[in-house]
């Protein structure tokens, strides 16, 4: 029995009147709906950042193209996409009641998220080593560095938040305080972080590849 059914069942038991039942919006439990609303709002935040980036890039002559290799970004993309798959396996295992497998795959997702963050920071350090900072860009307009660090930093912040949330939810799930629905809701957030990366990579990295 799902969380929504349990809540309705409890309501019926208390009131004894099935006519007064109100179905959850789109048949989605409240917590999951809240996550969807957050995802919609957050996608507007990222869209705003990427549109602002596009606007400035378009309006700036001689936009720098500093990236000579995309190997690191390709590996980061592979890691993040794979982490989405491991998250799915974790959620499906939780739905099937396999608690140990669900916890194991959630922690694999966490490990992949940490690996992504480490590679991201390593790439940042390389750029900082070449003289790029939030307010200085050795290849031309300082706006490039400002936008690069702001957009990738916002994404990295989301990855870090996701890793922390996954650890917290996985531990409470293993301890029996959270159920499969909670794991699925956190998984939704993780898939969203992956989805955003699909737009960040082409716009921020690949379009600025040196030819």
């Amino acid at each position, binding site marked *: 029995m799902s969380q929504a059914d349990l809540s309705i069942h409890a309501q019926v038991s208390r009131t004894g009147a099935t006519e007064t039942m109100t179905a959850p919006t789109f*048949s989605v439990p409240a917590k999951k709906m809240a996550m969807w609303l957050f995802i919609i709002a957050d996608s507007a935040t990222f869209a705003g950042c990427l549109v602002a980036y596009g606007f400035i890039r378009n309006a700036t*002559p001689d936009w720098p193209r500093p990236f000579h290799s995309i190997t690191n970004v390709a590996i980061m993309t592979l890691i993040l996409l794979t982490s989405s*798959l491991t998250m799915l396996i974790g959620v499906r295992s939780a739905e099937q009641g396999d608690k140990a497998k669900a916890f194991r795959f959630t922690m694999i997702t966490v490990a992949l998220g940490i690996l992504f963050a480490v590679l991201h920071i390593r790439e940042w350090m390389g750029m900082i080593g070449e003289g790029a900072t939030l307010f200085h860009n050795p290849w031309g307009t300082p706006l490039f560095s400002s936008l690069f660090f702001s957009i990738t930093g916002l994404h990295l912040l989301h990855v870090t938040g996701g890793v922390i949330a996954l650890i917290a939810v996985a531990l409470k799930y293993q301890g029996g305080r959270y159920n499969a629905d909670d794991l699925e809701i956190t998984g939704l957030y993780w898939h969203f972080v992956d989805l955003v990366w699909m737009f960040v990579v082409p716009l921020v990295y690949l379009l600025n590849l040196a030819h």
Partner: protein
Amino acid sequence: MMTTAADSKHSTGMGKDLIVYVCLLALAGIQFFIAYQNISTSQMFVRMLSVAVIEAGLALLFFMHLSENRGLKWFVLIFTVAVVFGMQYGWSDSFRLLDGVPWAH
């Protein structure tokens, strides 16, 4: 008893997830391939963005299970598309900054 989205998702298996994962990897690969094409930036932008939209659609529909809840799918789609389209009003001004006369020079 009421059927929720949480119940209906049991109908899909890991096979579909793996296919979607491979498709996403392939689409990401196409984006990297486009990056090395000898085409203009605007053409590159359109092609990469088109691939990214397909990737996002696959992730939303199958990884985030939107395909299993019609009402929620339209709710998310309409709100997100409306907001994203609403942000596009400024593009013409970015061209004015670059090419406009006489104040842009």
